[in-house]
């Protein structure tokens, strides 16, 4: 089975995001980067799918700049077989990203393509289903667990207030959310082995973005917390404030 996992390099959630003075974008200085948390789940899912079928290979793929090599190397150390860096400008336009990824995938005709349900920076939840549409693959989103048997994948996906069990035939795209795929840690052996693995870099032309940023700003500040008095009186006061001031009760 040919498996591809798409990962994205994103700012660490704990990093402070500072905007440029003119609000035209984010100040890149001092930002610490990680692999988007959901993409770690997607990679883990890919590695587990590979383990069920000896002859499988896992390719990790990203659209990003040279620094994303670090994230791809980590994935190789965890057990991916190959890595592809599509060197180009990262865009907020999900379809532009999807087009670049899908184009590269066509030459590989993968059986299974895994995505995080959403990227930690843009949080658009678009790229996975868009790639599926462009490749004309079946698509299951928001998956917490799945199992591949022959050419059928049985997926458990989260829906409002419950779960749905869905069966699809390969080839398929799956977007993974937090569930059974707790990421593994790299082993020393894995790290050593990764040094011999191939990381291919290709320059790509990213289509023009159809989402034009006209400005960025910080969300409005809250007024600050009002701490009610200790004890039972405080609780009565809280209820009164929620009703009369905040008007939410």
């Amino acid at each position, binding site marked *: 089975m040919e498996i591809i996992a798409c990962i994205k390099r994103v700012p660490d*959630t*704990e990093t*402070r*995001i500072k*905007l440029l003075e003119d609000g035209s974008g*984010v100040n890149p200085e001092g930002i610490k980067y990680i692999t988007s*948390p*959901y993409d770690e789940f997607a990679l883990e899912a890919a590695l587990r799918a590979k383990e069920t079928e000896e002859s499988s290979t896992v390719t990790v793929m990203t659209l990003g700049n040279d620094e994303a090599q670090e994230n791809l190397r980590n994935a190789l150390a965890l057990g991916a077989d190959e890595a592809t860096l599509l060197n180009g400008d990262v865009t907020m*336009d*999900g*379809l532009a990203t*999807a087009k670049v990824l899908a184009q590269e995938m066509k030459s590989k005709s993968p059986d299974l393509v895994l995505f995080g349900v959403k990227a*930690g*920076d843009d*949080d658009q*939840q*678009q790229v996975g289903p*868009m790639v*599926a*549409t*462009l490749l004309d693959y*079946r*698509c299951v*989103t*928001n998956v917490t667990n799945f199992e591949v048997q022959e050419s059928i994948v049985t997926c458990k996906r989260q*829906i*409002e*207030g*419950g*779960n749905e*069990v*869905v*069966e699809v*035939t390969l080839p398929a795209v799956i977007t993974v*959310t*937090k569930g059974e795929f707790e990421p593994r840690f790299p082993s020393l052996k894995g790290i050593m082995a990764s040094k011999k693995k191939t990381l291919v870099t290709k320059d790509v032309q990213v289509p023009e973005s*159809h989402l*034009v*940023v*006209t*400005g*960025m*700003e*910080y*969300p409005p500040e*809250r007024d600050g*917390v*009002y*701490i*009610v008095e*200790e*004890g*039972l009186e405080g*609780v009565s006061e*809280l*209820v009164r404030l*929620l009703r009369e001031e*905040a008007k*939410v*009760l």
Partner: protein
Amino acid sequence: MSNLMVFVDHRDGSVSNVTREILSAASSLAKELGVALHALVLGDSGAGDCSGQLAEYGADKILVAEHPALSTYLSESHGEVVVSAVESGDYSAIIFPATAKGKDLAPRVAASLDTAMASDVSHLEIAEENLEATRALYGGKVLVRLRFTAFPAVITIRPNVFSAKKTSGIGQVTNIDVTLPMPEGYKVKEIETLGRKNLDVSEAHTVVSGGRGLKDPANWRLLEDLRDSLGLEAALGASRAVVDAGWRPHGEQVGQTGKTVAPRLYFAVGISGAVQHLAGMRTAQIIVAINKDADAPIFGVADYGVVGDAMEILPVLTEKIAELNSEE
């Protein structure tokens, strides 16, 4: 500019709250633009019965596609019908509720139409005769304003972001002919619903979330009581710490690796307020924190705070709210 279309999310003959909210927001935008608001309903025969409800929230024209193959949600068949409905009209934007279905369907539609999409939009306006959308980045740390340069713009909007207001639309119903083969290679085998009335934490008007400070899963009874006192539009949420500990199902987790919620009222009980938790709830309208540590970071985003032991505060809070309700 041309017309607006809203994709209708309905269950058991009733239009979901988020659809009403989106119709209301789209209806005022349509009025501002001087265009019509269309609503698109897909489902098995009888799906169109909710048309009256759609007109009440501003739909001028209601496109109804009924077909047995549309009885369960499948992205391919739904996608095909939406795309052909959009292509047979002239639209500047197609708006989907950011529900499990909407989030699955909208990107497929955007890719098929080869157009631009903005997810989880919190504000829509016309700026210099262009449609401009505001949405959050980096777990809510930043807001970005985006202008579309491809149309129709595909947009998703989360529950509780806009409020539902009745306003009458023309409500003209048009049936669309659907010829679809029964879908192949994709089968829904089973649907399991967890808990109470299917209300998901991401859709609830009020969320009562608990964290490690609750000490023991048995203490969730106290949170359930509080939720029940808050009425039918309330749901339970949880921090990752208690989900990882197996106290609560992941479907309840709020935060970076859980759900993003924007309720009117959010209670964070025994939750420290780690940045990954805040990423999922900082856009709630009113945040109440209950924590025994006055320095807990959750107080940094809360509107109201109670410093103290949750196990003592919760029963009193529940009782006071119940009293308030019984006065009415």
